[in-house]
């Protein structure tokens, strides 16, 4: 199974820190999975100009194609100005309509304030739904107070990250079975 971790911001370290924990948890629990972490801070991705995602070049092409090839995507995002960063929205905009069809998508969020808790519900899930993702409904919400010097200091968060990883894999495997059973009826 191909799992892509997508750390959605160029600013700060908390989301990347949480994504590192997440990818490590995934590697330990599912050693056979093919794991790739894309930290958008490390790539020079251009703004979407509407072309086919395979016609971009360099980092933009790499990011778009890697996401499109994934079976499941774990998105990590901070909350900026009461929304997701433009860098992450741009990745969605680079992809075709229905890009997440047959893919499982889960999320972790880092935020400076608990007031941001519902932003994922109200802003990210509608995008993922429109793009036809199978969404892991429960996400991990991590506050600024849970970090200390690029480490997560709240054990409860670590347990929730483990559950997120497990939920992502279980849903991906289960959804694959559902899809196979449905397609077996088609005879083509």
């Amino acid at each position: 199974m191909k799992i892509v971790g997508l750390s959605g911001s160029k600013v700060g370290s908390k989301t990347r820190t949480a994504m590192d924990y997440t990818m490590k948890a995934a590697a330990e629990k599912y050693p056979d999975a093919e794991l790739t972490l894309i930290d958008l801070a490390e790539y020079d991705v251009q703004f979407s100009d509407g072309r086919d995602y395979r016609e971009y070049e360099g980092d933009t092409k790499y990011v778009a194609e890697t996401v499109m090839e994934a079976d499941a995507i774990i998105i990590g995002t901070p909350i900026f100005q009461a929304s997701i960063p433009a860098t992450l929205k741009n990745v969605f905009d680079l992809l075709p309509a229905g890009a997440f069809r047959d893919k499982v998508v889960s999320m972790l969020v880092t935020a400076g304030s608990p007031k941001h808790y519902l932003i994922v519900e109200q802003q990210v899930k509608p995008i993922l739904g429109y793009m036809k993702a199978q969404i892991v409904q429960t996400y991990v919400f991590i506050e600024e107070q849970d970090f200390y010097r690029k480490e997560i200091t709240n054990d409860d968060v670590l347990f929730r990250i483990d559950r997120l990883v497990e939920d992502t894999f279980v849903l991906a495997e289960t959804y694959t079975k559902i899809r196979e059973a449905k397609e077996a009826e088609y005879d083509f």
Partner: protein
Amino acid sequence: MEEFHINQNQSMELGLYTLGDLLSTHATEKHSSEHQRIQEMVKMAKLAEDAGLDVFGVGESHQKHFVASSAPTILAKIAGVTNNIKLISTSTVLSTADPVRVYEDFSTLDLLSDGRAEIVAGRGSRYGAYELFGYDLNDYDELFEEKFELLLQLNKEQPITWEGKFRPPLKNAEVFPKPLEGNLPIWRAVGQHHSSAMQAGRMGAPMHLAALYGASSVFEKRVNAYRRAAEEAGHDTGKLPVAAATIMYIDQDSRKAMRDFYPYLNDTFRQVRGVSFPKDRFAEATSIKNAVMVGSPQLITEKILYQYELFGHQRFVAQIDTGNLPFKKVQEIIEMYATEVVPAVRKATKK
């Protein structure tokens, strides 16, 4: 209708079209050469003529996976090996071309074919031509509208005086040669954009509508919007023909048709658009209310007639070599189409 060479008193026109796609399909495991593919397009047109079909179209593309960048050249060869079938472009990427040159090419084709040429002008659903010829995709709509207006004006009156943004001005200019009857049927290709259908109506141009997949009722809405816009602009919709274009695969056994065709359709989607064709959507093709023309001759006939009830269209054209289907299968499909589907549809739509 006569203005566009459509005979009101006849049954619906039935035809074929090809995009000359040259995809590497694992189902065939054999790559055709460009040479072979272009020759097969001509053979396909000849078979269509021999089978008594009304229309044959060649669609233009300027990028990988397609060989038909010079559609009028291919149509010219087809004109030489046929006598009756109408020759249309499905479509001409007008946005990146010079309308004057397009008009010259198709007027020439019209004389070569004794008056059988028609232009279906579009913006291109594949964008290769924009980069190749140095056009900005941001001008997508404006390029097309300006060039389409010029093309229509050339068809209406010459000499012509014209000025626009994307081409040098024309002062009292005349274009040679003239089409056989002085003008050509010029259609507007309409794809996913509802606004494009309405614009076709406002201009009083015949509409060549891509109705590829999904519920046929979706396209009915587009046809209705076209006619409504035409009426509001003061055009007589009774004089404006509508054509529906789609993909088609026939086998005597509908289930076998679904099974055999899916890999080609899915491969085409994967290579051309970078996404799969969802199986649950393809499964809907078993309903006569779905626009994907896959199944037995009987089912295809019912589907076309169902659309005829919805659209009241004058022309139906189908692409039957999607995904570089083996030519042997293309021949079989033409045979079944011409001997089973076409007579039934003609009979049912006869005035």
